[in-house]
Structure formats: structure tokens, C-alpha cells
């Protein structure tokens, strides 16, 4: 699966389409690692076109949060209700370095705030 990396006001926005399962999670992880390796403290993942995610994809999100810990945060945009439920089950929704946005505009607003220290 291709992960498209866009730029949202200087922040990388990873856009992936389709199910993020064990067969494709490594390509998402590679894009995420590359974005973090470039020195970005905030990375966004667009989940609006992701109908399904499983532990493969969830692990990638968790590792992204770990890598950005004490530097910034990982944000996801527009997960459907079922995907959101899984984010909650694995504890991401209460992680201080993970953020969930309904849409792009909400993410843009959050990025304009300085990272709390």
C-alpha cells in the first residue's frame, strides 16, 4: 500500500487509504519513521479513508507516540467510530502525546499552539 506524505503547514501529514492490517502496517511505519527521522516533532496521520485497523496498525501508532514522547505528539485525523473504539481500547485516547482530530481544520488549529512543556 502506498502512503502519501503531504505537507500541512510544515507538518507531515501521512495519508493512507484502505485497511491498515498486518500486511500493510510496515509501509505506514516506514513513512512515520522517516517523518520523525527528518526532525519533525509533530506528525499527523489521516485516517479518514481507513475503514479498518488492527493490532498491526495500532502498534505503529503506539510506537510513533513513543518516538515523539517529550518532543511533540502524534495526531490522527477523522477515524471512523469503530477505529476510534480501538484507539480507546489500546489506551491511545488517554495518552498525553496522542491527539485525535475530527478534521484537518481542527488539526491546523492545534498545530498553531506551542507544544506544552
Amino acid at each position: 500500500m502506498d502512503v502519501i506524505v503531504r505537507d500541512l503547514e510544515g507538518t507531515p501529514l501521512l495519508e493512507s487509504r484502505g485497511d491498515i492490517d498486518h500486511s500493510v502496517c510496515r509501509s505506514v511505519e516506514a513513512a512515520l519513521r522517516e517523518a520523525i527521522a527528518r526532525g519533525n516533532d509533530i506528525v499527523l496521520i489521516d485516517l479518514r479513508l481507513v475503514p479498518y485497523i488492527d493490532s498491526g496498525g495500532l502498534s505503529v501508532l503506539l510506537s510513533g507516540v513513543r518516538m515523539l514522547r517529550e518532543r511533540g505528539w502524534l495526531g490522527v485525523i477523522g477515524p471512523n467510530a469503530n477505529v476510534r473504539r480501538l484507539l480507546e481500547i489500546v489506551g491511545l485516547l488517554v495518552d498525553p502525546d496522542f491527539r485525535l482530530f475530527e478534521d484537518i481544520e481542527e488539526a491546523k488549529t492545534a498545530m498553531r499552539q506551542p507544544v506544552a512543556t
Partner: protein
Amino acid sequence: MTEPANHGCQRFIRVKAETARLAEIRHFVEQVALEAALGVERVFDLKVAVSEACANAIEHTGRDEVPLEVCARLNAHRLTFVVSDTGLFRPPAPPREGANYRGLGLPLMVALMDEVSFVRIPGGGTAVSLSVLLDSASP
């Protein structure tokens, strides 16, 4: 070849044990679960749980070229999917560098299903049963 875990199957899918086939298995689960008139949430739960069990099975059977089998059983009270493999169930591998893709699978199955059981198949292999109780279908 004896297949005790498949006894009483109403629906059955057998695919090559590779992660590229997980989407096909989820499609099978979705069809069966929708026919059983489950709500969208429970259908999703089953897709995740079965897909996780299959990902585990694929990891266990590895390069053996042994097909992965998923069987569905429906009665008045429950819908059950049984995932059988010929490997041994092992606890998740400790995290390596980067993401540990497998560690969350079992907790997710337990969180999403009403019943989860693991059975050693005589002669080798493991069967994972994943059930939703139909009475507890979405409120």
C-alpha cells in the same frame, strides 16, 4: 487429514497462510456476521478478532505452506469463528526495535469478544474460538 476443529462448520474458508490474505478472511467474516444480523459494531469486532487470530496463526505456521482455516458456526445463542493452525500457540514475542506488531492481538481479541478460547488440537496445532453472544448484540 483429520480436521476436528472444523467439525460442525456451517461456513468455511481456507486460504494460503499469508498476511496478504487477511482481507479475504475479513470479507468472509463480514458476510457471515451480516447474515447473522449482527450490528455494524459487532461485525467490526469479529473482523478484528478473527483477523488477529489469523495473523497469529500465520506467524506460527510460518513457511510451512499449511493453509489457514476459518470455520463459522451459528446457533440461536452465539456466532463462533474457529481459527485453526498447525503450529503451537506462543505468547507474543518481546518487543524488538520499533513497533511490536503482535503483542496487542490477544488483548484485542479478549476486549472485543464475548468468549475466547484456545484449544490444543490432538496431533498438533491450535484452534482459537472467538464468539459473540447474540443476546448481547448491540444495545
